[in-house]
């Protein structure tokens, strides 16, 4: 394999893994606080369609990105109101949110299907992007990918180093104890859900404004679900989330590469590869039961009410 091909594979791996990384980072924070939001797919699609419409109408890609985030937050607030405010079942609420988001985005976006848009272009950083193999992957991407790097660093710092991270972890492990200690459990959880919504919206915006600058129904193709699995199989560890997201990207690329080279493997089998590879690798990594229990938010998915 020549070095140009490898450079390009790495570049495409990160590019393809980025939407997954964004959603998964948001859901990671959300789950760390003890809330399981299965509405990721719906929030992504809603973010994608709103981002596209705004960018197309206003001509400003960044305004589109901002509105994609806000769209995600808006849907997440709906989830927060029902699942946290009314202490409903989180699984059912999240599923309903996805169904709602899929339908709503199709409805709103019907008139925008197939319209062309000049999306985010790669912005190569001089010199650095010339580094062999990794240069293009890390320094030849578009601005939203750089943003995903920054958000990853931010989330890693918050969870591993900051007091806010301690609070999120405490609320996710034992909301009763956290509340007795005077921590505002529902406010922390609501903020975590909103952050998850913003990240899902951003991921949707990345899909419709950078990855494939256009709007199509269901264009996220299950990435919201993969991200949910990713968080679990990454044992709620932020570095593994990145690993998993990019691995998924790599496997997605490989199937294109293999088809390009003309390997005689049925296309459907190859299309399965990213899903299978990601899950297998992360399952193998999460075998250590002690570590997994240390990172898993104990109260995940359990409705909680103040007072008792």
């Amino acid at each position, binding site marked *: 394999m020549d070095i140009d091909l490898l450079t390009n594979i790495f570049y495409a791996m990160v590019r393809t893994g980025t939407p997954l990384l964004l959603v998964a980072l948001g859901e990671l924070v959300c789950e760390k606080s003890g809330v399981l939001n299965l509405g990721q797919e719906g929030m992504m699609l809603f973010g994608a369609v709103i981002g596209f419409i705004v960018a197309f109408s206003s001509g400003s890609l960044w305004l589109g990105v901002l509105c994609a985030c806000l769209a995600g937050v808006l849907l997440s607030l709906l989830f927060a109101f029902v699942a946290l405010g009314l202490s409903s079942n989180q699984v059912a609420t999240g599923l309903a949110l996805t169904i709602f988001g899929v339908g709503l985005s199709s409805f709103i976006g019907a008139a925008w299907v197939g319209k062309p848009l000049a999306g985010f272009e790669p912005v190569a950083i001089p010199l650095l992007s010339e580094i062999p193999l990794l240069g293009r992957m890390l320094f030849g991407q578009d601005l939203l990918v750089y943003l995903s790097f920054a958000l990853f660093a931010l989330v890693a710092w918050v969870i591993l180093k900051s*007091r806010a991270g*301690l*609070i999120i*972890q*405490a609320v996710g*492990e*034992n909301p*009763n*104890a*956290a*509340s*007795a*200690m*005077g*921590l505002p459990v529902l406010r922390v959880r609501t903020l975590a859900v909103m952050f998850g919504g913003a990240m899902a919206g951003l991921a949707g915006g990345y899909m419709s404004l950078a990855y494939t600058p256009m709007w199509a129904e269901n264009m996220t193709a299950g990435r919201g679900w993969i991200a949910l699995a990713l968080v679990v199989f990454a044992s709620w560890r932020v570095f593994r989330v990145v690993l998993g997201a990019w691995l998924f990207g790599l496997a997605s690329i490989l199937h294109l590469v293999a088809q390009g080279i003309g390997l005689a493997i049925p296309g459907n089998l190859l299309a399965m590869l990213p899903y299978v590879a990601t899950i297998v690798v992360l399952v193998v990594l999460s075998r250590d*039961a*002690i570590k997994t*229990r*240390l*990172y898993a938010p*104990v109260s995940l998915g359990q409705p909680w009410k103040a*007072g008792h």
Partner: protein
Amino acid sequence: MSFDTASTPRLQMRGITKRYPGTLANDRVELSIQPGEIRALLGENGAGKSTLMKIIYGVTQPDEGEIIWHGEPLKMRDPAQARGLGIGMVFQHFSLFETLSVAENIALAMGAAAGTPKQLEPRIREVSQRYGMALEPHRLVHSLSIGERQRVEIVRCLMQDIKLLILDEPTSVLTPQEADELFVTLRHLAAEGCSILFISHKLGEVRALCQSATVLRGGKVSGHCVPTECSDMDLARLMVGAAEGLEASYPKVHGGLTRLRVDDLNWHNADPFGTSLAQCRLEVRSGEIVGIAGVAGNGQDELLALLSGEVRLPSTERERITLDNQPVANLYPDARRQLGLTFVPAERLGHGAVPDMSLADNALLTGFQMGLTRAGMINHGKVMAFADKIIADYAVKTPDAHTTARSLSGGNLQKFILGREILQQPKLLVAAHPTWGVDVGAAAAIHRSLIALRDAGAAILVISEDLDELFQISDRIGALCSGRLSPLAETAQTTPVEVGRWMAGEFEPVTHA
């Protein structure tokens, strides 16, 4: 007492009333505590102690009444405000986060201004040394023993300028020796001027530690007293009113033939937070009660699961547990039940009974081998008759057998579960924490039932954290510590101090007889 004449109390509660749907948790409660005073708050489960504590600590707000702190009335909005005033609370169920380190737990409670976990480490070491409570700030809480976790809670309170320390049944998780060490710390604190509110229902401890006591019954203050000047009976009457069955003592007996034999039982627990069992040996004979003491989390749950059949050994090791010389360690619970083993688990709702099923259906769940079914069909008439008999024989307070298990009080449900198992005429009954959270009257009834079953010739194994209970009812006694079982001694030949040492692991490994 000199305290009664001192100037301004540190804390006064006046006319505190708190209603929950269906109950009056606190009814015009009055309480006052002076600087440097150690005051006991006594009462049965459900007497309103915990509610009162939560009100002081700002977790809940009273419907009526006022809190006066250093002579100034104030509203306690939340725990942060209480902590700001110098009030610390050690909960019965620890409010610690297992996946965080000691320092992180303490930093979380202290607020952002106190510093990062790393910055707090020197002070944590200093405070823990000063009060004789060794603690390693780096360790993750899940790796600490129960006693060590309690130290974390206490040190957390002592990190700030503490004026009032509230402890909710702190000794219920400690061995007698650990409790004595705690008392030394508390006296040291009180000597420095800290007021201490000590919640308990153990009269001996209260007398050893506290200068004064306030007794609650049914949400009301039933009396104030000086513990050293009252007898156990005086205090017990204040706590429960009519003191029936409190003084009961039962004759100790020697058992007959060996019913249950546990021989060199080793079991590795795959759960990293659980306990593994090592070299457990135990015999329970017909017509005797064997009591196993121990602080929670020392292998009780694991031993119970292995005895009941919820966890099984491979058939190559089936001889490790025998019932009437028949190997059972590889059998499922229903097969063991057929051989005459019945089981009262620790957790009533969800393990001993299905909360949302009726008492009749719950009776069927373990009693189905008593001819309540035929060819797979349920005979509802017989089921109802069985349930009604349990309710009548064991004085279960319930409208009828159609009531759901969830709607019964803890004591009544426990009487029902125990009755269900006893009426199956077991050869061996294994009961875990039979009177945990049960009021005194029901506890006495449960004890009488167990003694009657013993006298009828059954073998009984009771696992409990309540040492007083075990000394009251068991004929032989031992203790579990870190998954190892102490030798058994005749209850009449041993003392709580000795058993306390066993609970702390101070015993020789049992060798083959």
